[in-house]
């Protein structure tokens, strides 16, 4: 029945892959055998044909050393090779194509009336530090992870075994070491952003209008809009799944069996692929996708027109409580000389 749980998980996580781990094609004992076969039952049990695993004992004490045959291992291996890496690669490639097309079609989504230069505070230093910490760790893990998942089919033929195994080993060690950091920064992310990401009225209309991508004009949104909130909860929830399964994989010394490892590996990979795919979209919308969005995570301030356009409900609050900073004050707060609104007045000597 553990195979069923695995199946169930696939169905939940990735429908199109649910066919992946079909029930094992059982090869019954040779047809037309009438005579009682005393050994057959024994070996059948040993080979785990009917799900009942017969564990023996061995003088050698190590993980699963009592099992003679691990029939599911091959199944897992096939799933990883044929489904995970291939579909994973396709998914990653696809999102880039989609984003490019989107850019070609829609281009940079402008703000009505352009940028006013009058800014409002959106994120504190700490919030931005948390965001970028998570981003850096995530990107590092994504790259190293993809090297391990797709490297054999994409890089190895180019680099050759010797060179590629360098990359692979480096990726593996780096991936293992940065893993826990992901969990930590994820917790920081949860603590500092959770409250503002609770769903509220008006989020639904945002969804119905497809977040403004469908049709003209922007859709109403609060401090965070529906899309951002959804992305946030995806990161938090899937992120935690990835982190936990990753910790299971990275610490084999607790004697967890191969079965748990295989399960964690599948969950880990699928979850990571989903996050990677969506994150590309996130990066696109946060940077070249929409005008004036990146500024919020760079300086912590956004243009008031941008706020009105993308987060009108929050923008209204800014107007009411008049939190708007003039262009001059903004320049001053960014440490520019009075009158100088261009480059930072840093003495960048070395």
């Amino acid at each position, binding site marked *: 029945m553990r195979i069923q749980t695995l199946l169930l998980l696939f169905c939940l996580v990735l429908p199109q892959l649910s066919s992946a781990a079909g029930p094992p094609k059982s090869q019954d004992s040779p047809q037309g055998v009438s*005579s009682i076969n005393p050994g057959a039952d024994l070996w059948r049990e*040993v080979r785990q044909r009917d799900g009942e695993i017969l564990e023996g004992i061995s003088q050698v004490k190590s993980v699963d050393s009592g099992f003679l045959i691990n029939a599911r291992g*091959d199944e*897992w291996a096939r799933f*990883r090779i044929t489904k995970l890496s291939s579909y994973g690669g396709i998914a990653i490639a696809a999102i880039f194509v989609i984003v490019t097309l989107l850019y070609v079609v829609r281009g940079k989504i402008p703000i009505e009336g352009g940028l006013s230069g009058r800014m409002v505070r959106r994120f504190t230093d700490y919030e931005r530090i948390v965001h970028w910490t998570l981003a850096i760790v995530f990107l590092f893990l994504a790259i190293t992870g993809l090297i391990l998942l797709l490297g054999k089919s994409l890089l190895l033929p180019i680099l050759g075994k010797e060179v*590629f195994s360098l990359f*692979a080993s480096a990726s593996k060690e780096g991936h293992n070491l940065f893993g826990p950091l992901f969990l930590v920064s994820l917790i920081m992310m949860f603590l500092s952003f959770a409250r503002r990401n609770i769903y509220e009225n008006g989020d639904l209309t945002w969804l119905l209008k497809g977040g403004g991508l469908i049709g003209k004009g922007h859709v109403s949104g609060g401090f965070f809009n529906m899309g951002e909130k959804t992305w946030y909860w995806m990161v938090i929830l899937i992120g935690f799944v990835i982190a936990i399964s990753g910790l299971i994989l990275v610490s*084999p010394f607790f004697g967890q069996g191969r079965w748990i490892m295989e399960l964690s*590996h599948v969950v880990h990979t699928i979850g990571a692929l989903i996050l990677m795919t969506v994150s590309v979209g996130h990066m696109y919308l946060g940077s070249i996708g929409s005008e004036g969005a990146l500024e919020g995570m760079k300086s912590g301030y956004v243009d008031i027109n941008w706020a009105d356009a993308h987060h009108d409900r929050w923008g209204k609050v800014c107007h009411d409580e008049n939190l708007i900073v003039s262009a001059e004050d903004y320049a001053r707060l960014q440490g520019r000389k009075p009158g100088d609104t261009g480059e930072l007045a840093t003495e960048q000597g070395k």
Partner: protein
Amino acid sequence: MARMKFYCDAERCIECNACVTACKNENDIPWGVNRRRVVTIKDGEQGERSLSVACMHCSDAPCAAVCPVDCFYTTGDGIVLHDKDICIGCGYCFYACPFGAPQFPKDAAFASRGKMDKCTFCAGGPEEDNSSDEFKKYGRNRISEGKLPLCAEMCSTKALLAGDADVISDIYRKRIVNRGGSAFNWGVSSNIKG
């Protein structure tokens, strides 16, 4: 070309673990790693059977298929070997292997998993035959000396057989014929010993 195989006769294996000891000793295997182990099914019950398992050198090896750095290769004799200079110790081969053959040393200074180690059919590795380097990494290379794996050589009941598949299957076929009973009874004698 020969196709090397192990075969363990459950009717003969007496769980003496001599094969395990011989392997460890011959190949100077580090503590905590066991290339070969004896598993006893239904220990102490009716129909108890013991088998000595190690890498079975599969013709279509799942370990080779799943290895992310492709460090496995099959020799002309059908022996599945791996290159420790390529291996990154990810452990996937251990998950994929039906027999739990791949082993990992825990004593590497940092990595919780060192590079994988498994039965080489006493055929060493990619290094030059019988070089000290080869011995350090993979153990003895008896095949190059025209000898068979020591585990099988040492087996007192000749339960564990190693060698060319054809030869071994011949031996086995003879045994079954002598044991009598149905041709399809999987080599188990009709009157099961308790």
